[in-house]
């Protein structure tokens, strides 16, 4: 068993409490919700990178997707939050769990040095770029945020409006049809139908 497992989860818990506390002190109830969903998002993805077993990683991804849906809610995009849960948690996660059946248990696959080194490098790079960007770009922020419009029919009108997104909408429909038919076709082929170039070489 991993010696670092307990310290890792303890650290995650401390960071979660810290985030919620920071949110509460800076923005009240909304800040608490923001801190909670942020901790869910980031913590879930960290657990996904950290864990050895694919099943645990896949389920921790559920926390990430749910946290992102919560952030969408805080940003006033209700429809997107529901779509996120439906498609990601209900659909894509189930697909990934299918892939779990393909991966033999390989406890030596995760190299801690690689994961930790990668995390330090990437977070450092992001922090560096972020500090540069934050120093030069003036974000366009409305002083008073308008009430978020939560009507679903606006999205529908946006999709079908000739001035709006009707062409990307049709393209998306076509891509979905082609991609799903192709995915079923690729996945349903039997192993005997595939010509294995290595087998031909040896023959």
């Amino acid at each position: 068993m991993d010696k670092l497992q307990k310290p890792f989860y303890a650290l995650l818990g401390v960071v979660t409490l810290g985030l919620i506390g920071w949110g509460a002190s800076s923005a009240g109830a909304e800040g608490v919700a923001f801190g909670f969903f942020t901790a869910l998002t980031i913590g879930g993805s960290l657990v996904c990178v950290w864990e050895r077993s694919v099943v645990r990683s896949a389920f921790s991804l559920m926390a990430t997707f749910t946290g992102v849906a919560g952030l969408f809610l805080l940003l006033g995009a209700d429809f997107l939050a529901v779509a996120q849960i439906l498609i990601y948690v209900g659909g894509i996660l189930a697909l990934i769990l299918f892939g779990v059946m393909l991966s033999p248990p390989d406890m030596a696959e995760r190299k801690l040095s690689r994961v930790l080194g990668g995390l330090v490098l990437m977070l450092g790079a992001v922090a560096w770029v972020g500090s540069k960007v934050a120093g030069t770009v003036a974000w366009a922020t409305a002083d008073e945020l308008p009430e978020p419009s939560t009507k679903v029919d606006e999205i529908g009108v946006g999709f079908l409006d000739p001035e709006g997104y009707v062409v990307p909408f049709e393209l998306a429909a076509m891509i979905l049809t082609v991609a799903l038919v192709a995915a079923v076709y690729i996945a349903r082929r039997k192993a005997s139908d595939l010509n294995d170039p290595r087998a031909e070489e040896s023959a």
Partner: protein
Amino acid sequence: MGLGAYIAVSAVLFAIGVVCIVSRRNMIYVLMGIEMILNAANINFVAFNRFNGDAMDGRMFAIFVIILAAAEAAVALGIVLNVYHLFESIKPSDVDLMRD
């Protein structure tokens, strides 16, 4: 919460997604990392949409990203299935047909 907080969350999620793709030797983790990166992009779209007035564009983009992510996951899983049949392994480094 201001725009900066959401962008910071999205940046961290993106970084962890890249680490997930790069540091693990398993194609399933590559798929999971891609989903994290797409989610990070979506947070950015929705956050900028919220803090830049009441236009709908950012949310529409986010919906298109979700649509494409669904298609991508299905196709990617089909490819992973076939790679497993061919190579009896889903380590990215084992897929080396074109090397020799």
